[in-house]
Structures are given as structure tokens and as C-alpha cells.
């Protein structure tokens, strides 16, 4: 079924909206949730919560791209659930590695962090990804938006493990430089 028809079903409060979403995007949402949570039961729960979130959001929302609308709900719920876990249960899943990698984009002791609103930071990141080569951008998004594992990215792009790792490393260093330049951090005296 076409996405706009599915959105219409949500707007007309038809429960078929959930069934159609499940058929078309169930696997997509599950993959995102599982990448983060690494637990089948939790991932399924998040996918169900995603349907509920979509049901509660439409109306008033009428997303132009249903897949990413759902994906963003799934991603957000999954990260929240992961955060809510006890520290000792925050094992597995790509998120542990991803968080660790993203520390590369945080300056070491020579800079002062500024409080930047998430929305402002998001704007900077959207601008940043326009400045990097296309393949690098795609690999970056697969890793840090979809939280795909490195081996999965290797398979998808036909790159070697080292290639993906070095590409991501370079991108993170570029992001750090970009964020500094854009004023997300100040160099201390």
C-alpha cells in the first residue's frame, strides 16, 4: 500500500493503519530497534510502541516520508529504553560502541563545552553532512543513525572492516573540527 494511503488510514482512525504499517515497515523498525537494544523481546516491544506512537501522532502529523517518520520514533524509543536500563544491563547492541565512538567528536581538556540545544546541534550536523563526500555521508548515517554494525556496513557497501573504521574515524574528526568552527566548543586559554 502506498504510504499516503497508510497515513490516510491513521487520519481516519482505521486500525488497518497498524496492520499495513506492520506489513510494510515492521522489519525496518525492528532492525533499528534490534541494532540498539540487541534483544529480541525488547526490540519487538519497541516496534509495538512505535505503532502506538504513530497512532498518537497522526493526526496531527502527516509525514511526507513515512519510513523515516517511523524510524525516528523507533530510534528515539529504543535509545530511551536503553538509557532506562540498569548500567550493568547496558550491554550488547551497537549503541555502546557508537557512544564510545562519538566521544571522538567531543574535545579533550583544551576546549570548553557550550550548552547547545539539541535542535541547534542537529542543524549543525545536517549542515556538516552536506560538506562530506557522498559515500562518507552514507556510511556515517548507517553507523550513527541506523546504528548498523561495522560488519553490516562492510557487507552493504562492499568495503573492508579497516576501510569502514578509518572512514568513520576521519568523519568523526572532521565533525569535531566542524563543531568547533561552528562554535559548539570554545578553545580555552
Amino acid at each position, binding site marked *: 500500500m502506498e504510504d499516503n494511503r497508510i497515513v490516510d488510514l491513521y487520519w481516519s482512525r482505521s486500525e488497518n493503519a497498524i496492520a499495513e504499517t506492520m506489513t510494510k515497515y515492521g522489519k525496518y523498525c525492528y532492525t533499528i530497534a534490534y541494532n540498539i537494544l540487541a534483544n529480541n523481546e525488547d526490540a519487538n516491544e519497541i516496534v509495538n510502541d512505535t505503532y502506538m506512537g504513530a497512532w498518537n501522532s497522526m493526526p496531527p502529523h502527516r509525514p511526507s516520508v513515512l519510513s523515516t517518520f517511523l524510524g525516528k520514533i523507533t530510534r*528515539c524509543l529504543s535509545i530511551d529504553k536503553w*538509557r532506562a536500563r540498569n548500567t550493568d544491563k547496558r550491554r550488547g547492541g551497537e549503541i555502546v560502541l557508537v557512544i564510545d565512538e562519538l566521544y571522538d*567528536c567531543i574535545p579533550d581538556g583544551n576546549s570548553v*563545552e557550550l550548552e547547545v540545544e539539541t535542535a541547534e546541534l542537529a542543524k549543525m550536523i545536517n549542515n556538516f553532512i552536506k560538506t562530506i563526500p557522498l559515500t562518507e555521508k552514507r556510511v556515517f548515517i548507517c553507523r550513527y543513525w541506523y546504528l548498523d554494525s561495522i560488519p553490516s556496513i562492510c557487507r552493504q557497501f562492499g*568495503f573492508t572492516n579497516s576501510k569502514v573504521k578509518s572512514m568513520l574515524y576521519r568523519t568523526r574528526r572532521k565533525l569535531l573540527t566542524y563543531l568547533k568552527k561552528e562554535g559548539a566548543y570554545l578553545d580555552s586559554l
Partner: protein
Amino acid sequence: MTAYNLLDAIGMINDEDILDAKEAVRTVVNHMTVRHGFVVRKRGRRTTICIAAVIAIIFGSFVTAMAVNEDFRYAVYSFFHISTPDVGLPEEDEPKQSNDLEVIYETDIENIVNVEYIRINGNFDYGRGLIYLHGEAGDGSAFYTIKNGQLEKLKTNETSLAYTWKGTEYDIKFSWCEEDGAIYIYSTGKEPANDAFWYVSPVNGRTDVVTLTISFGRQNDYSEYTFFLNLNTQEVTDIFDGCGVDQLSGITSTVFSKDMSKAIITCGNGTSVYYCDMNTKTLLMVSEFTGMPVNAAWFLDDNTIFSYTVDENSKCTCWHIFPSTNECTLLFTDLPIYSRTSGNGIIFTGTRYGLYVDLDKTTYMYDFKTGSRAIVEGLAYSGEDATVIMNANGTKMLYAKFDYTADSLAISQLGVIDIEKGMFTILERKGYEIRDEAAVSWFDNDRISILATNSSGEKYLYLYSFTS
């Protein structure tokens, strides 16, 4: 600010970029199926990625219970290390530009490797031994062949037609030429109105027809279907007429036998693999032969299929299937799939041959048709910094080792495993950082190409011929 803030902010990346990241992957997977076609490069590294992905997507491995032919157990591919390195041509030594497409440098290394540099001004694509140079505003686009250091322009034909299937109209337009009894094709392969992809591929031994594969749906709904297209009449005919293939959903790959009378059709990225005999109008799941689900299958010859399944421990079971007699023979069990973590296992290439890396890095060439293997002397393969790519006719395997301290591909070693001659020849490269190297692949069945760009954006193809 913390890494968590960054993670949240990344979650707000624009929709089109999020979609594009996965769409690009899907395109790569789709193009991988065009094994005998003129592989079109849309962007710098895409073709190499596609070709490399053919190898990378089906990494496998291999160990116990192998029905290896004893005669071949101790066979060896001899090793030849060329003592003189290939040294990149410095930019200052380049001749001045005289043509849009020109051979600017040629050298022989120890009479074993011939190297040619082709400098190209403008947009181009390449593959199967030809270069397709795009003209201004689409005019004057043409195919070129390169023989003995000479570039020759070929007669280029255009075909365009509108074809409607299941309510979607496809605006098919492509360039092609005929050379040495084969058809070569260049097409952009995308229907801009509805994002429906299509591509055209040559048919082995035919100059009157090509295959036209059209796709519909996106992401999980993606499916494709292949037709014959007559180049003279532009008539489109259903290859699978009466076979029931049109009832399958989620087709992601269709691979034909050499005689085009049979096909292996993969649905849902490997969840269902079918065998179709178009002469007898038979459509069967490959699992009906093996008795268990399979992950992949391909033709070893017109009458033999190789198939395997991978278990939860990343070990595979492999079979020979002979559909004409309904026979299925177990070939290997507990064969580990190669992984970079373990550094051990089988690397499938989608052809008759595969590379097996033992725990001690001893590397073997496996022949899946005979069940034999031979040590490749001088090769201790590591997927961490190297790749292998089989040529289109399955007679030679390219080996490239990368220098990951450099920004570009930076190929520090280039080699060829010549299966017919039983020899592995390797060439050291120096000066690979002079120009950014973006792609390595087979240019044709005998020549390896490296795509490079200089700091001014000028593009080069380096062609390497190994005469082991």
C-alpha cells in the same frame, strides 16, 4: 555536551539523507546481479564497490568433511614476485592535454606487466573493455576501445522505448555498440518520475537481444522482473512466460545459465531461492532439492547448480544440484565462512572458484565443480587490508592490497591469480599517492583498471595486463 547529545542530534538528520543512505545500498545490491553486463558507474567508486560487493556479500568458510579430490590436495599455484616495482608517473612528467581521451603513458615491467595510463577529460563510464565517454548535453557520447595503446571510437547506437508494466511506465533509453560479436551497453537505469530502476544487460552470444530488468517498489517492497528486449524490433518479451515467476514477490536477483534457458531467482535478499527452467516451464525452490533452506545458489555450468546454507555458527553446507536428473550431492559440511575477525574460512565469488584461508593464513583456491583445492603460494590473504575480485569469465582473480594509512584506495600491491596457468603473480606499487585512487576492478577479462583523480579533478584509468 555529551556523546548522548550528539546521538540525539544525529537522530534529527534530514529524511532525504536517511533514505538516501539505504537507497544507495539497495542500488549496490541490485547492480551486483549484472554479472555479465556493462557495469555502469554513476559515481566514482560505485562500480568497484559493486564488483567488490559481489565478493564481499557472500563471504563463507570451510573446513571439515570436505570431499576434496585427492589428486588435487597437494596441487600448488606457483608464485612469482616481480622484483621491479611499478612506479606511478609523476604529474610533472605528463604530456600536455591534446585530446579528451588519450593514452599518455605506457610501460612494460620485466615483460610481465604492461601498464597504460589513459587520461580522460569529461564524464565517462567503463567496463568490459570499453570506455563510454559522455558528450556535451548528451550529444556525441560514444564508446571507445583500447587496443595496443590505441583508442578507437566505435559506432554507437541509441535505443529508446516506453514500456508499461503493471501500470508503471518505464522510459527506457540506452546506448549500445557491437564489437567482436558482443553487445556493450550504457544506460542510466532510472525512471525519474517514480524512482523505478531499470537496467539493460547483454546476452551471452547474442547480438539481437538484450535483457531488460525493471524494478518497482522501494526498500522492503522492492522487486524486479527480467524480459528479453529485441534490439531490432524493440519488442519486449517475457523470458519467464508461463513459469509462474510473475507470481513471486520481492525478487532481488535473477541470474541466468550461460545458455539462458534456466535461471536462479532470489527473493527477499536470500530468504527464498528459486530455480526456473524456462524450457520445461518449471519453477522450484532450491530447498526442494537440498531438503533444507538455502542462502544462495548459482550455476557452475548449464546443468549444475552450486548451493549453500549457513548455520548459526557461520558454517555452511554446500551441495551440487543436477536439476535435469533431480539429483543433489553433498559437497562440503561445516565449512566456515570467512570473517575478518577469525581471518579464516571460505570466500565465495559467485563462480566456480573460491578462496579459502586457513587458520595459519595458508590460502587455497577451491574449485567447487571438481571439489579440488590447491595452495596459492605467496598469498596469506587478509580481508583487513586486501580484496579479491574474479574476472567475468572466471579464469583470473585479481588481488589488491591497500595502504590504509593513505586517504584514497592506495593500492600498494596488485596481483593476479591465473587459474588456468596455476600461477600467482604479484607486483609492488610505488607512487600510488600521486593521484587519488578511487576504484580497482577488472577492465575486461585480462586487464585490471584503477580509476584515479588528480588534485585538479582530472581523471585517469590505469590499465594493467599481467602476462604470467
